[in-house]
């Protein structure tokens, strides 16, 4: 017990973990809303160069231009700065402890005023706006324990356009790969231009209903081009990507070759009687930023 107490601390010497975490969270928010990750930018430029529809080219050209302006002038990538989602992977060996939710709430509130962010957060029934993007259970926070001594904090401002077309399907186990494909393609076509295509699709397969949705969201943290470690799943990812891009929905749903930049699947084993399938859409403005905090309090943002 004594050992346990020594191991986990809010501060070591002059280092105050609360301060570090607050600083990290504010920096992550600022970075995420003004730049898009390199892998996403590369994929968009590639789409622009290879798009076949004239309207599609026009849209992608404007998006490429938009990314440049946002970066150069420190402007927001998209005016919908989303709902704040934090995903924490806490190493079992880390010496640090913190009240994540309280600190991230403070960071979101500060960033909303300083950047500024659009005040998006409201009560679900009264629609009363809190004006600082925080609220009961907001920011959304998922914490999981992992191996090692680092803490990885990821931030994802999730826009409504793409979140609103996300879906969950409880399939029967006899359903085949074709059924899964069919459902995903149908959802993509129904969504049309709403999630600002070209999109990235996060797919959660198996587990339970809530686990599938969470896997679909977490899948979106993986960079474009990164394949699932399971070779069968990796094959399905590229098969789905190819299939989605055959629909012709195109940039902004106005028709064209590029409907989707990548498909990411995360999976879990599931009950013999069920087959959960979750789809989380991410728009081309696939904003995310992560930081790894070391045991000595230093951190690196990517």
């Amino acid at each position: 017990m004594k050992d346990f107490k020594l191991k986990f601390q809010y501060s070591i010497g002059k280092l105050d973990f609360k301060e570090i975490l607050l600083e990290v969270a504010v920096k992550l928010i600022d970075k995420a809303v003004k730049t898009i990750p390199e892998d996403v930018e590369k994929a968009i430029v590639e789409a622009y160069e290879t798009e076949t529809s004239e309207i599609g080219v026009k849209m992608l050209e404007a998006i490429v231009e938009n990314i440049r302006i946002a970066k150069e002038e420190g402007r927001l990538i998209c005016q919908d700065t989303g709902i704040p989602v934090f995903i924490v992977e806490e190493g079992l060996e880390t010496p640090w402890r913190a009240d994540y939710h309280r600190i991230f709430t403070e960071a979101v509130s500060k960033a909303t005023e300083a950047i500024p962010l659009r005040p998006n957060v409201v009560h679900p029934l009264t629609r009363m706006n809190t004006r600082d993007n925080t609220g009961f259970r907001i920011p959304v926070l998922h914490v999981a324990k992992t191996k090692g001594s680092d803490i990885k904090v990821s931030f994802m401002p999730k826009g409504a356009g793409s979140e609103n077309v996300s879906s969950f399907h409880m399939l029967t186990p006899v359903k085949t790969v074709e059924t899964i494909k069919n459902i995903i393609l149908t959802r993509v076509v129904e969504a049309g231009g709403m999630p600002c295509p070209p999109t990235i699709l996060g797919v959660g397969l198996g587990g339970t209903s809530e686990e599938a949705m969470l896997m679909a969201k977490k899948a979106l943290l993986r960079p474009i081009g990164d394949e699932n470690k399971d070779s069968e799943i990796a094959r399905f990812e590229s098969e789905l990507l190819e299939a989605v891009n055959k629909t012709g929905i195109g940039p902004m749903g106005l028709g064209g070759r590029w409907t989707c930049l990548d498909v990411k699947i995360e999976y879990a084993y599931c009950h013999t009687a069920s087959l959960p399938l979750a789809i989380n859409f991410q728009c081309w403005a696939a904003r995310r930023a992560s930081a790894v905090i070391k045991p000595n309090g230093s951190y690196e943002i990517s």
Partner: protein
Amino acid sequence: MNLDITVPVEDVSNLKVGDVVYITGLVITMRDQATKRLVTYFQSKIKPPLDFQGIPVFHCGPVVKRTDKGWTVESLGPTTSARMEDLLEPFLKASGVRIIIGKGGFSEKSTEIFKRFKAVYCNPPGGASALLSKSVRRVSAVYWLDLGPPEALWLLEVYKFGPMVVAIDSHGVNIYSRVRESALKRISKIVEGRI
């Protein structure tokens, strides 16, 4: 075709699906709550705070900042218009608006409404707010701030606002439904590996 449009504009019948347009003049932002309130106003014969005739309506919730000199627009871009689809007909009928700007468009059932009211729908690239906000010159007025800044009506002076693709025109053509229908037909063929 690339077209520069100066508003107010009354006749948009020259605009065809696929045209790329840039707007100079005034636009007014509007989304869920304001659209709802406005339609209620029209139905109860209450005068709205401004005359919409000839002014493009932009489905958008901007990020704004209050400075010593007044309001500035930090960031703006189109929001999903489908959420306003149920109110489209009463809105077009009472407001006299001829250009709606947004993203995602409307379904096939609304194509005929655009035709009947001789209106068009323009789609700027969704999410491209850094690019689009550069063309905002000034906040001319704001109404209904009680709805919260993103939901309020912002009357903006813009210069060469675009690019926007005419996606539903006044001649009964709707790109979204055309793209969607052809995609729906393809799904089974894609799944079966026939294309």
